[in-house]
């Protein structure tokens, strides 16, 4: 079976025992993202302390990959600045586009920690969007949280 390459134990652990799940107060922005091809959805809140991500809370339903991805993301981004978190998201995107190239995963091990286990997903184009949904939601929510924290900041410019 090729399945083990996608369903790493780390992924299944996050799926069965998700970290940080549940919607919490306070928060500056809440977003709802869906995957229209399959109906998976996530509601995600971001709470900032200055420009630092103090909390990411979420509820969602979906496959093991989408649910494990949001859990692994939670572990990574808490305590990061929004800028760092978005950069981590870019690394995760690079991993998802690696089509199973192990050298890409190797280079990103430090940046992505547990999330590097999703490398196997990159071999299955139909599942990549499952893994990316929560990262897209985080990007959206942190942009909104920042603009509500800095209402005069120009949109689309630098983040800090």
């Amino acid at each position, binding site marked *: 079976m*090729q399945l083990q390459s996608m369903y790493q134990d780390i992924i299944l652990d996050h799926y069965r025992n998700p970290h940080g799940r549940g919607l919490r107060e306070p928060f500056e922005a809440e977003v709802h993202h869906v995957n229209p091809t399959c*109906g*998976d959805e996530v509601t995600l809140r971001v709470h900032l302390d200055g420009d630092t991500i103090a909390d990411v809370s979420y509820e969602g339903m*979906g*496959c*093991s990959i989408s649910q494990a991805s949001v859990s692994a993301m939670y572990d990574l981004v808490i305590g990061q600045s929004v800028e760092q978190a978005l950069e981590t998201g870019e690394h995760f995107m690079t991993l998802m586009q690696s089509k199973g190239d192990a050298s890409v995963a190797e280079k990103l091990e430090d940046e992505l920690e547990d999330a590097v286990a999703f490398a196997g997903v990159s071999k299955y184009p139909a599942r990549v969007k499952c893994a990316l949904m929560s990262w897209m939601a985080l990007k959206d929510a942190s942009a909104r949280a920042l603009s509500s924290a800095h209402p005069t900041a120009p949109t689309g410019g630098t983040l800090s």
Partner: protein
Amino acid sequence: MTQTVSRPAASSGEAREPTLPLDVEAIRADFPILTRTVRDGKRLVYLDSGATSQKPRSVLDAERWFYENVNAAPHRGAHQLAEEATGAYEAARATIGAFIGAPENEIVFTRNSTESINLVAYALSNAATAKEPEFRRYAVGQGDEIVVTEMEHHANLLPWQQLCERTGATLRWLGLTDGGRLDLADLATVVNERTKLVAVTQQSNILGTINPLGEIIARAHGVGALVLVDGAQSVPHQPVDVTELGADFLVFSGHKMLGPTGVGVLWGRYDVLDALPPFLTGGSMIEVVRMEGSTFAAPPQRFEAGVPMTAQVIGLAAAVEYLQGLGMDRVEEHEKVLTGYALAKLAEIPGVTVIGPPDTVARGGAISFTVEGIHPHDVGQVLDDLGIAVRVGHHCAWPVVRRYGVPATTRATFYVHTGYDDIDALVEGVRAAQRFFGVTPEEATA
């Protein structure tokens, strides 16, 4: 203990199962794609015909024959190829019409069922602003109602939602019972004097339910409404005759019935088609064109703007001939036997719930199910790893999965090349998924 999936070489079933109405081995030999392997050498178990069907060699040969020998734009030009292309295109129209008991001038070629439905929906709103009084007969506007059901594929829902938004008409719908059937308790109030059109599927693409169209059509016609039947999942799988059906429109897609992609059919009663303004306009749908304004051809040409998908139409005629060679009665019976077998085998797996009618009464071969503790995507992934192609998700019928309180389902659909071995593989694959995700519920027999 091994997790190897047992795949009996013979497709004639286990000793106690009835012999299938169709000769599956002979039929499989007609489908080139079924000889390929997937996911590291595994036999392809294709249980996704409901999304799109595979194509027999005769369909592929027909398209190739057209391009290599005849290719020209039909209904244009005076050269020999143009004549032959026109002849082949119109002969295909007659073949496809005869398949559903319709004269050729009631057959309109479109891209697929989705486009056929949009054609009707746009014609009904175009009717409201048509300058020709004869095209206003079926105009839809404020105060009118369009009726659909909660069971519809998005293709038979969104065009009607949009029609209502364009015209100010109201969309109403018939709900579903817990058992996966249309709830007709309030048919007489939902379909009323204000109803202009009822759009309903003959066979649900997700639940498998075959609907009691006679009752719905009788009520609709009783109040003067038109009826459009979505035959995308019925025409490929059961005999359908439009004179018996009694509807005003029937739509279906070529690619779901062994034909090519890019060709679909709108059948309409001639007097209804003749009273509708065009949807797409342009070349070959015209009568007289002047800079100041134009008049249009009679149906079906009125609804076929531009050079048509000629090779695909000829391929679809070949698909129809292939199905006629098997006999649609036998195709229907074949799938009924397989559906009964699959429902019984799936019912033996603890944790598996079928969404839709639990037996083969008024039911086709689309079987949607959930597996407790495993998301359908993950079920589909394990099945894929074993070479089994199924559909997962909401199957373009989001309101249906919402109605039954599940995020998505896994769906298996059958066709003429499906055998007992395919269903055995599916059942073993579901058990493999349960083992892989460690959710195997306690079984009665260990």
